[in-house]
């Protein structure tokens, strides 16, 4: 099973330390929630994991290797990082074809993943005319292009309406049932409680709690546990 590991990961921007000695392990075949208040360092840690940002020290590894050293990155890991990443002046399908070409994935796969995320009808529409929810679905489609075993999703439910959120939950559960490893960051704690198996909670760049959802929440809710843990760590 695929595995993600952070070893003493630190990322500093000039005087600001966004991630401080983050050490965590994400088990294969499970959905892990990556939680924390704004500025906790979640997105920065995920960018380091995906070689989009250079760690100041420590490492972030996927199956024992940095992302940039994976032989077929898109076929190993699919990622959603923000809703950008696309040329707004061209269609969703053309954007996916550009990414597919770079990874040596056939164009036909672009149509398949658009169908998977219910964007077939909007495939020829320019991305600048997509709603935020449609852009999120397009990001998911791009993440699925290489049929990866691992998914790294940064706030994938941003901009989705309740129906979209429910769709995403079922979608992730289906992928998890097929053995995919999913690391997902989100602020929607009630939703995460029903979606993820494990959680890692960050505050000010450090891990303040990790474990299965049941271990973390006890008899309460994830939101109650989250607020309690963040306040006690402050």
């Amino acid at each position: 099973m695929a595995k993600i590991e952070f070893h003493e990961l630190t990322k500093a921007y000039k005087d600001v330390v966004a991630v401080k000695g983050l050490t965590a392990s994400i088990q294969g075949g499970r959905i892990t929630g990556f939680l924390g208040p704004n500025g906790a360092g979640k997105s920065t840690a995920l960018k380091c994991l995906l070689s989009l940002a250079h760690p100041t020290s420590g490492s972030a590894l996927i199956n024992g290797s940095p992302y940039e050293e994976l032989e077929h990155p898109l076929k190993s890991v699919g990622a959603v990082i923000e809703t950008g990443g696309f040329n707004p002046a061209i269609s969703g399908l053309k954007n996916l074809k550009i990414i597919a070409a770079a990874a040596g994935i056939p164009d036909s796969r672009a149509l398949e993943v658009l169908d998977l995320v219910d964007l077939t009808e909007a495939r020829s529409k320019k991305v600048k005319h997509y709603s935020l929810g449609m852009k999120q679905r397009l990001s998911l489609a791009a993440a699925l292009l290489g049929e990866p075993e691992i998914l790294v999703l940064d706030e994938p439910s941003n901009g989705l309406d309740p129906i979209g959120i429910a769709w995403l939950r079922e979608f992730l559960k289906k992928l998890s049932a097929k053995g995919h490893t999913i690391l997902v960051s989100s602020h929607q704690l009630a939703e995460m409680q029903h979606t993820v198996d494990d959680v890692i909670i960050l505050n000010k760049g450090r891990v303040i709690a990790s474990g299965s959802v049941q271990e973390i929440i006890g008899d309460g809710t994830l939101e109650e546990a989250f607020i309690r843990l963040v306040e006690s760590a402050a």
Partner: protein
Amino acid sequence: MNLVKSEFRKLFYTRSVYGLTLGAIALAMLSTWPAAYAVERTQNLLSGESLTNPQMVAGIYGKATSGYLFAIILGIIFMGNEYQNGMAISTFLATPKRTKVLYAKLGVAALAGVAMMVISELFGFLGAYIGLNKYTHAALTSGALLSLIVAGIISGAVLAVMGVALGALIRNVRIATTGVVIWLGVIERLIVVFWTTGGKYLPSGLIVGMLNVKLDVKSVGRGLNIDTANYFGATTATLLLLAYAAVFAFLGIFTSLRRDVN
């Protein structure tokens, strides 16, 4: 090859590339067509130089290389869009080895710059031909034509590469494009004309050198003195322009490797 294919798709899907090519064509034609009339009618002001001088004719045809300004803008847009639209995220997720991406992008940009220059030069030559057609004594030698074509091809490739590097360094397409238009379109041209000693080292001055046109024109009573003997010869100018490309390519790659993608 996958990366090259992906970069070509980015290029062909970008509508502004076609607009830039049209702009290069328009500039090349507007630079050559009226030049023939201008030379013939102002020969009394230009120390007697006229279209009987084959070098003057080559100089008019040489204006067909004016489209290089659009080649550098093409490079800027090609790279700057990656950062401005956040496309760099999907690009570097698909190919995290950034050096490979930059090599592919520089190569495709160079080819696109060459294509743009060849097309705009052909239209520029057409403009010159139309403008010079009624002057039966105006003729272009095949050797001069070859020099002009080679100069266009090299300047297209080099300027597009420089554009990619500037796009990587500055990232904001609008600022980079405006800066380049002001520099190459105004400041550098003034330096090249009025301060040849320094201007000959600048890309525009080197392109003038590559054209291999030998002119010594003094405008009567206007203080203008254009003596192309002050510029580098074609070979030296070509080598120096290629050195510009190498330095800019290095800077573009170096910056892209070190930078975090946000």
